[in-house]
């Protein structure tokens, strides 16, 4: 909720990582937009086995629910010493949905070192309303994540998060396989909600990040409260009275 992404280190078995390099080098067939997973990825295919790994399948179901559709997929390749980085961007179009979000899976079949230019991810940027690469001017933000990871790592990201492929300054080609998933059910209490009343929930929703301007960071908390109300079907949820305070309208109450 606060970070906008979930990182699962080295959860893909090494034999699949080894297989992936050949699969990606050969290229993947396009998938028609909005295909159910079963139609997009035949039983036994590499992609099907990847999304059915228990840790991946469980995380996806908690975020987008059962039977999501595949929006699209793509193998991103950063060539050795290619000399440039992607500008910081969010994928697709500026997205105004208050009650739904897509999830992007990023899979890294190799060990990713700092020199290989792993993906730059900006924690807590996913609720910003900016369009694609209009953020390209921002080269570095305090608290950014310059991903380095062991082979077999999967990162699941909210569709709106600011990210970019960093410059590959190594002699090795770098692969990243991305799949975007669309939910087909309301994203309400899809995860294990046994600890919904835990103080840790509030701590996470109230988290700040080093790149936030202090004043705007408060708005981020307010916007998380609004999203949490939707995801938990709890219209009265609040944190430190942020939302309640500014919606108190005594003049509009009935005096009957």
């Amino acid at each position, binding site marked *: 909720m606060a970070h906008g992404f979930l990182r699962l280190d080295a959860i893909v078995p090494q034999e699949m990582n080894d297989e992936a390099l050949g699969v990606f080098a050969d290229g993947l067939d396009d998938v028609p937009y909005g295909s159910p997973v079963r139609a997009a990825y035949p039983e036994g295919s590499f992609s099907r086995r990847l999304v059915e790994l228990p840790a991946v399948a469980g995380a996806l179901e908690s975020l987008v629910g059962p039977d999501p559709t595949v929006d699209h997929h793509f193998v991103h390749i950063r060539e050795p010493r290619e000399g440039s980085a992607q500008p910081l961007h969010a994928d697709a179009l500026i997205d105004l949905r208050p009650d739904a979000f897509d999830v992007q899976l990023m899979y890294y079949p190799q060990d990713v070192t700092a020199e290989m230019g792993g993906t730059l991810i900006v924690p807590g940027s996913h609720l910003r309303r900016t369009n694609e690469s209009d953020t390209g001017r921002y080269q570095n933000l305090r608290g950014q994540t310059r991903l380095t990871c062991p082979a077999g790592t999967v990162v699941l990201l909210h569709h709106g998060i600011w990210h970019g492929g960093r410059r590959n300054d190594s002699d090795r080609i770098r692969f990243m396989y991305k799949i975007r998933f669309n939910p087909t059910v309301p994203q309400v209490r899809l995860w294990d909600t046994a600890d919904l009343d835990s103080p840790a929930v509030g701590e996470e929703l109230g988290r700040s990040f080093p790149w936030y*301007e202090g004043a705007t960071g408060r708005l981020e908390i307010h916007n998380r409260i609004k999203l949490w109300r939707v995801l938990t079907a709890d219209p009265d949820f609040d944190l430190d009275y942020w939302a309640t305070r500014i919606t108190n309208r005594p003049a509009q109450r009935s005096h009957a």
Partner: protein
Amino acid sequence: MTTPDGQNSPDSQDSRTGQDSSRAGQVRQQVLVLYLNTSALDSEVVGWARYDGTGRTRPTTGDSDEPPYGTGVAALEDGWRLFQAAQLIPPYPGAEHETSFLKHEFFFEKLV
């Protein structure tokens, strides 16, 4: 001339004129963009970007985790000249709670 690591060689030749592009007497602009915590120039840096008109360096996205200065004023103290500061613009009506770009953007230059 671009070296394999993407850095421009300091003794590069201009491909159109055949002349040294860093020859003496030609002033070049280096630009530093700092994003600050508040609209005050002495508040702390939360983001940064650099552009180098000399071609000697090629700063890019995600190339450092620590800002070059702690505050905007610290950049002034090191000789950077402020040439643009973000205006304070009221939020658009109806979108007061939306978040988007960083608000407190300051452009500095050095002429070298």
